[in-house]
């Protein structure tokens, strides 16, 4: 087990190197620092001095890969690649275009993201599993068919309409909750209700329908038929045999997204002006702040890979049939 985890972690390193090289290529080779400077200073009437000045301010005035004017190790460390890309591996994200420490900003913004994402995930999981089990319990009846139709309708609605509609109905017309905003501590709960609720509702369609297939797959297996043949009641069969086996793919599906919860949701956070990492990302894209985008790309990849490793470990824990070698 331990050796397996070590090997998986070692396998993650070349992937992170690949991500790093790819982002370096996209951000510095395809789109040179000169272009970046011009984008920020405005396209027209930019003097060469202004560009040089901007580059020097943001540390983009070094050669890309090899610095011929330096000697020894500095020949390779005093370059854009080392300063901007390699240092990401130490989670040293540098400074954003307006001079803020990106690492500090990220650590500050993780908590609001999690405050929305974790409750939404947990409540959503509970609702989806319940709904899916209900459909599977009444399979091939009108309850099941109308449930599936409802799911297809729910998943055909864009996530933005859930947010806009929810804000309009609950916050504007009935004034039950504030439209947007965020506060820490116990005062913050009233701000969280609506985003969490919308996160849950918008996920029901796809989630419940997907989980339903797991339940149906298990419900058709031989051991379930044996359980019924023994004379167990249908609800006992569902809870004891079907649910426990169907939970295996559900749990692993949840585990893979767990690390990504840190990144927050782009839409929810920006519509509800929650100071999390999702709105941080959107702000960075709108301000064309490449330093922040680079940092988020790297962070996202790290979290994704952690998710993959966690899934493999979870498999062995929830499903004793799987042995890692």
């Amino acid at each position, binding site marked *: 087990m331990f050796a397996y985890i070590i090997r998986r972690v070692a396998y993650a390193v*070349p*992937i992170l190197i*690949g*991500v790093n090289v*790819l*982002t370096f290529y*996209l*951000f510095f080779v*395809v*789109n040179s620092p000169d*272009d*970046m400077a*011009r*984008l920020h200073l405005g*396209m027209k009437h930019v003097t060469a001095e202004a560009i040089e000045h901007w580059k020097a301010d943001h540390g983009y005035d070094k050669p890309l890969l090899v610095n011929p004017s330096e000697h020894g190790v500095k020949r390779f460390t005093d370059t854009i690649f080392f300063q901007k890309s390699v240092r990401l591996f130490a989670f040293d994200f540098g400074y954003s275009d307006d001079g803020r420490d990106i690492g500090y900003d990220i650590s500050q913004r993780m908590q609001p993201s999690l405050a929305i994402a974790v409750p939404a995930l947990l409540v959503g999981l509970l609702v989806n599993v319940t709904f899916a089990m209900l459909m599977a319990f009444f399979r091939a009846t009108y309850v099941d068919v109308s449930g599936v139709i409802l799911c*297809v*309708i729910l*998943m*055909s*609605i*864009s*996530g*933005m*309409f859930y947010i*806009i509609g929810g*804000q*309009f109905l609950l916050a*504007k017309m009935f004034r039950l909750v504030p439209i947007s905003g965020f506060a820490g501590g116990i005062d913050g709960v009233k701000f969280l209700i609506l985003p969490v609720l919308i996160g849950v509702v918008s996920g029901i369609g796809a989630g419940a329908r997907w989980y339903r297939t797991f339940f149906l797959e298990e419900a058709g297996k031989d051991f379930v038929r044996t359980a019924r043949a023994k004379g167990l009641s249908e609800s006992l069969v569902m809870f004891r045999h079907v649910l426990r086996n169907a939970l295996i793919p559900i749990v692993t599906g949840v585990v893979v997204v767990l690390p990504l919860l840190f*990144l927050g949701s*782009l*839409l929810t956070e*920006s519509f509800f002006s929650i100071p999390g990492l999702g709105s941080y*990302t*959107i702000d960075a*894209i*709108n301000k*064309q702040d*490449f330093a922040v*985008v680079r940092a*988020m*790309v790297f962070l*996202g*990849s790290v979290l*994704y*890979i952690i998710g*993959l490793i966690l899934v493999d470990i979870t498999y062995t824990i929830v499903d004793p049939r799987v042995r890692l070698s």
Partner: protein
Amino acid sequence: MIKPVLLTTDALVFLLTALVLVFGVYARNKPHLREPWQQVLRGRVAAACTVVLLAFVGIGLLDSVHFRTPLKDAGSGGATHYSVDVLSVLDVLVGPLRTRQEKTYSAPFATHLFAKESIELPDGRTVRAYPRLVYGGRHLRAGGPGRLQDILQRSGRSVAETLLGAALLLVVAAGLLARRHATPVPAMLQRILRGRTDMPWRTILATLSALLLLLFLAINLATVYHVLGTDKVGQDVFYQSLKSIRTGLLIGTLTTLVMLPFAVFLGIVAGYARGWIDDVVQYVYTTLNSIPHVLLIAAAILMLQVYVNSHPDLFETTLERADIRLLFLCIILGVTSWTSLCRLLRGESMKLRETEYIQAATAFGVSHLRIITRHILPNVMHIVLITVVLDFSGLVLAEAVLSYVGVGVDPTMNSWGNMINGARLEMAREPVVWWSLLSAFLFMFTLVLAANLFSDAVRDAFDPRTRVR
């Protein structure tokens, strides 16, 4: 003379249409290819969805034939100059919808603007009032029938026209079917009306009639009113929604067209060859998958913007600039979405290479290329098809989100995402400007719902695991 304009995406659309048509002709006489599609169409829901989807595709195709009209004033030289406005056949067909621009917001079926303005009366006084719309409800005379009565009259006429059209459709369909099955027409008519035909002709005709009703309503009402209101700059929202159809369809189809060759080739080769090739392909897709997709798309779109801004001479009109961005968006969406299909195909071809018929082919000394093209590719095509159809609705929805983030299609291009984005802030207004959102929602919801239901039917028909009958 008009000057035809072939945008890059237009060319790809026509290529795709040609491919589908060629496949259709090819599959006509091949029972094993024809059968699953017939099974799809035999379902009532799927048949209705197909009709709706075809209507969307038709509008999208009409909107893909572009041209530029010559300017009236040809100038002193012999050469004609062309207008910078690129029009499509759809623009010509809907004619007045495009040109009748009001000053600013107006509600659906309104005759007056949404906001009060200072109006100068003939006697010199100024009052604050809702100004009359320039085009909306212009035909209404002061003494004549009121607005509500006029709308009812026009709707009634549309219903009558629809009933006539539907009856005509029914008779034509019954005639054609009767000839094919060599039964008398009245008997066929009865079978259709009772729903006792092989294909669900009753459902198909009912859906067609519903579309016909919408068409007649549009002809009778949209030409004199702004049926879905006008937006901030006074443009007809109904026209915008129609124009957005092409954008939505392109995002959904071209993206898959772009990613298919990579996904199919790499997936099959990885699963078939195994060894280091498999490792490399797996490495590539894990790496690409691990980058948050929105950020990769954002980075690529920002890069394209820099390129377009520094090469303004490459693109003659704003539409061409918007078009290259749309194409690029499709490509980059393809880059982020090919991985799941690639993984599926890799697993499937790994399984297939161990089957007896492929082992036999290997034993006979058939070359690898031939095994892949003759034996593996046809046997994974159902996976490809199911993935393509399933991905479509997700891509249409993704466009809206990307446009909201600011990395979607060009802001000048009509798209549902841009409509939502523009109307989003108007929800805070009192009273609310809701019609842009509602129309974007209705059009998107219809397309995505139809696509979702259709894809379910396709999956049921093609996936051997769910094929029970």
